[in-house]
């Protein structure tokens, strides 16, 4: 069996597992749905952080933006958003099934497109920032967005928005949102797999390795950076829209723009699995989510301390991540040919570069 076939088999198995999971473990549908969201988080963060070397701490901005855009579309198509939110959830609005599904579909589409547009706009502003300034700048954008939405009464401010209620049975609702989460994660993975086989990947890798040289070689770096960020924003917007509907109630600080939880988790998961690889973020997110869900309630408050320690250990001692480590150890298994003299040259070149 060739390596390619093996990978295809693995993909098929994961797909199958994803499809049957909610029927096998109906009590865990929500948790597994969140796992797919986490995988999407890690994958989209890695486009920038892993492949392009731009470490964003503010990608969660697109998640929250998608959530709010979707809510505004879903409500705004049929009602006055200001009236709906100003009642602080104190009005009951019935959406017919037709209205609900139309709103949901249009909302998700709009979230994706508008989030990507936001990436283009903010890209012009923040992409001049290099290294840690970029990380701090993006973190600032995400925190500021949370604060501003919290002060914006039209969007419900700090009391948030109660999302339109699903018109059917609760079990169907759980399945619908499960498959939306699953589908968006699979779509992200498939898209990135295709994308990473093109010249696009070489270009953004070049930006990571040496931006000035890449520019000198004629790569239009700003354009590539903006496109890469828009792709991440597109999928994050979708996942925000789905997640907001899945949880039923959104508010700015803890649900939409949770910079210190989801915003950091996505970085951590990508690093844990191995950044700059396609499977690393998937592996990291799965491990992280499963370990977290299993241990979380038993640690009685210490789980957050453990999370902080995990970040430190991961970053300080194990930054190449699981896949990175495995790749170094068994390069052949990853289809990397190791020619002895060449690799010596490589090492020399790397040393020189450092």
């Amino acid at each position, binding site marked *: 069996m060739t390596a390619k076939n093996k990978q295809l088999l693995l993909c098929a198995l994961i797909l199958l597992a994803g499809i049957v999971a909610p029927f096998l473990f109906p009590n865990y549908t929500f948790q597994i749905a969140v796992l797919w969201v986490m995988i999407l988080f890690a994958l989209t963060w890695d486009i920038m952080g892993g492949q392009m070397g731009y*470490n964003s*701490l503010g990608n969660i901005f697109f998640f929250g933006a998608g959530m709010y855009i979707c809510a505004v579309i879903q409500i705004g198509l049929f009602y006055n958003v200001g009236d709906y939110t100003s009642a602080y959830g104190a009005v009951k609005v019935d959406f017919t099934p037709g209205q609900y599904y139309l709103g949901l579909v249009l909302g998700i589409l709009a979230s994706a497109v508008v989030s990507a547009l936001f990436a283009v706009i903010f890209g012009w*502003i*923040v992409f*001049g*920032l290099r*290294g*840690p*300034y970029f*990380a*701090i*700048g993006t973190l*600032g*954008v995400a*925190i*500021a967005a949370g*604060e*501003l939405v*919290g*002060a914006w009464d039209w969007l419900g*401010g700090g009391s948030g928005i109660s999302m339109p209620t699903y018109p059917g049975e609760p079990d169907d609702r759980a399945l619908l949102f499960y498959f939306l989460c699953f589908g968006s994660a699979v779509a992200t993975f498939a898209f990135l797999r295709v994308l990473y086989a093109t010249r696009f990947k070489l270009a953004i890798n070049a930006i990571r390795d040496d931006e000035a040289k890449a520019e000198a070689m004629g790569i239009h770096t700003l354009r590539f950076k903006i496109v890469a960020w828009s792709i991440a924003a597109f999928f994050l917007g979708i996942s925000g829209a789905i997640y907001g509907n899945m949880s039923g109630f959104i508010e700015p600080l803890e649900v939409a723009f949770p910079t*210190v939880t989801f915003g*950091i988790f996505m*970085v951590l998961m990508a*690093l844990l699995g191995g950044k700059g690889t396609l499977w690393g973020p998937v592996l990291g997110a799965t491990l992280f989510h499963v370990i977290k869900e299993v241990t979380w309630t038993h640690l009685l*408050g*210490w789980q*957050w*301390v453990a*999370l*902080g*320690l*995990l*970040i*430190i250990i991961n*970053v*300080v*001692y194990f*930054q190449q991540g699981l896949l990175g480590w495995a790749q170094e150890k068994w390069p052949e298994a990853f289809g990397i040919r190791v020619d002895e003299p060449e690799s010596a040259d490589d090492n020399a070149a790397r040393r020189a570069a450092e």
Partner: protein
Amino acid sequence: MLDNLSLLFDLAPVFNIQLLLDGLFIGAIFALAAYGLALVWGVMNVKNLAQGDFVIMGGYIAYSLGEWGIHPILGLPLAIVVMFAFGWAVYVLVIRRVIDRDLFTSLLATFGIAIVVQQSLNLIYGPEVKIAESGFGIRSALDNQLTVSDIKVVSFVMAAALAIAVVVFMKRSRMGQAIRATAQDPRAAKIMGIDTDRVYAFTFALNAAICGAAGVLIAMIWVIQPFYGITHSIRSFVIVTAAGFGNLPGVIIAGLGLGVAEQYSGFVMGAEFQQATVVGLLVAVLVWRQIQQGRLRQVVQ
């Protein structure tokens, strides 16, 4: 919003003085913590996201003293000593290993430290807000229109004294000179026989000590809570990014300015924008810096 502006300019201009005073007193403490950040940033090129959490730790030292019946102002020397030791330990355990790595690594590692600190404080002290009561008097003028609590004046003086002490230390002492030498050129410093590892450890510990001192003052003026660190971190970053890290007068001016800006935005736009102003300023400062850089780059093109 316009009503509030007209209040300041026409109806009761005296409150401008109140806002200015409150802003300056608190800004002095912001400047202190920011100076610590400028130090580690400039000398070690480490961007410490746990800066605010060090401040809050200092605050809890003052609070604990108050609980034991000791006046919290005595927490100042204690916090300096304890936080110095804590900073040294953090350097040895974590920072030493990330100092040569890319900058994002140090950012994430210090973020991890921030989470550990705030969550540990939460487990020890609980999530409720705490205060350290100084019990000092309150001065007022113009029929109570203007009030200044003595603790603000005292902490302003303390902050100034600490800043002067640190400056004198940096200029006069051997260690201070070593720190400055390392900041200018670590390799040359190493060749000249300076133990840069020790210099880094000392710098990081000194920063933690400065933050701890700022925290003691904050706890006596405002309130503290385990998760308040992040806003203090952001303030420090705003100040240092605006002022640059080799620039003590700049840090002081930016710190005082930020304190005043917060008070005015809270007054004019409402308290909900007070925090947003700080973050907004951070983004604005970064963009402004970038435009400046963009100009520089154009020359090369």
